[in-house]
């Protein structure tokens, strides 16, 4: 029987190998309801692999995932049934469909309603682009459409994969404000340190697939192992 403390998404000792490459090495993480948890690390640290494991795109060789205390075997097309939505690094929109239609496909259950889609577009500030095709929009606006498509599902857990990539400072400030005001659990993979430090309650640091630190932004900021992983030498 699950208890209140079991609520949310937990990864227990996850290990993923791609041939001889150890992409994730005994990674454990708990994402409690309502928290914003960041995952950082240098390129190739295993951040996106972690997301792919949660989404069912990569199968761990060992370890277990639980959702609300129960074993969770993720499959991509069942994710939104469990209230999990994900944005993609490369935006990943349907270029032959309008912005509105893109967002409508993100609606979780029942008949997609334009009202819900417009609300999500309003929230991300691109409602005026509803009739446009994503491919014709600037990159930053496409990112906003991607966020709207994830938010329209009203996910209980939102996986954001490098949402700040390619955005300018003003856009990143806007994104930070949006994440702070989300009434949902967020797991954030991001390179932009200022964003991560400003919005996350807790941060996991990976290096070559191995967890090297887990703590609050202040704890991570002062962690020598983290500085070494990023700078290549002890701070």
């Amino acid at each position, binding site marked *: 029987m699950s208890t209140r403390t079991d609520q949310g998404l937990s990864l227990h000792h996850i290990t993923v190998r791609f041939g001889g490459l150890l992409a994730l090495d005994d990674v454990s993480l708990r994402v409690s309801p309502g928290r914003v948890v960041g995952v950082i690390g240098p390129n190739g640290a295993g951040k996106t692999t972690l997301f792919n494991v949660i989404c069912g795109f990569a199968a761990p060789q060992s370890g277990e995932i639980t959702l609300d205390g129960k074993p969770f075997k993720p499959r991509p097309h069942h994710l939104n049934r469990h209230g999990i939505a994900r944005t993609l690094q490369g935006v990943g929109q*349907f270029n032959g469909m309008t912005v509105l239609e893109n967002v409508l496909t993100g609606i979780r259950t029942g008949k997609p309603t334009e009202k819900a889609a417009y609300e999500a577009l309003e929230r991300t500030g691109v409602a005026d682009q509803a009739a446009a095709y994503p*491919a014709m929009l600037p990159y930053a606006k496409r990112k906003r459409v991607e966020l709207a498509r994830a938010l329209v599902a009203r996910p209980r857990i939102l996986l954001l994969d490098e949402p700040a990539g390619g955005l300018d400072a003003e856009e990143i400030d806007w994104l930070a404000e949006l994440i702070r005001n989300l009434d949902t659990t967020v797991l954030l993979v991001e390179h932009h340190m200022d964003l991560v430090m400003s919005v996350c309650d807790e941060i996991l640091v990976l290096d070559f697939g191995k967890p090297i630190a887990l703590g609050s932004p202040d704890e991570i900021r002062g962690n020598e192992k983290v500085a070494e992983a990023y700078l290549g030498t002890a701070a």
Partner: protein
Amino acid sequence: MDRFLYLTFDGLSRGAVYAAFALALVLIWRAARIVNFAQGAMAVATAYAGYSVTNATGSYWLGFIVAIVGGLVLGALVERVVMRFVDHSSPLNGVVVALGLVLIIQGVLGMIYGNEFRPAEAPFSRDAFQLGDVALLSRYDLFVFAAVGTVVVLLTLLFTRTSTGLRMRAAAFAPDVSRLLGVPVSGMLTLGWALAAAVGSLAGMLVVPTELGLHPNAMDLLFISAFTAAVVGGLDSPVGAVVGGLIVGLLLTYVSGYLGATVAPMAVLILLVVVLLGRPDGLFSRAKARTA
């Protein structure tokens, strides 16, 4: 002028059938990125099934329904049993398998029904109404327009007004992203093939009474015209398929009427080459994505 008007109406009627057939090709292209070269053979198979029922029961409409439903089933079967297992890393693989299907279907039809042309009756008169000295459309032409128009409207509503249509389109554009959004991608693919084959069957049922009749190879020329129509309009564009179908229908009829029927297939191939050289993505292709 009378001759021109007659040819125009005749061309539009033929073009409507090409449009339906091109639409079937576009549906599968959009769903699976495959040009289904077996579409003609599949359509002729269901036309045989339809006319078998018509001959057995005396009801054209029962046979018509059997052909369309047969198309749905055959399309789903071809996707589930054959195309799903094709390695799609090279587009050529799907083409080769589709061509293999053509040979199998035509061979089986030849064994069952023989290789003679079998007469196929039209449900309505093919005698054109006269306006003065000008021959306009026949009742059968009107039926063709109504049938194709209904299919176009229904497909448009499906793809733009229903969640199933939206999910079908999403699954076709980006399968992995669609899965993340909860779209049952493989089911959508099967549905796409089934719908396309049903539309192809409709085109087959419409064209057979206007040609020499039923024959295992009856759709070969129709396929070339419909493929040209789909390429002219743009393989990604249902609207393009309809417009392309009408263009090809008019071209074939004008060339047949003014220059002779033997030149007509060449005119279609010239049109295909011109479009491929000038606008290879078709007249209704969308603009490319911006990069910043």
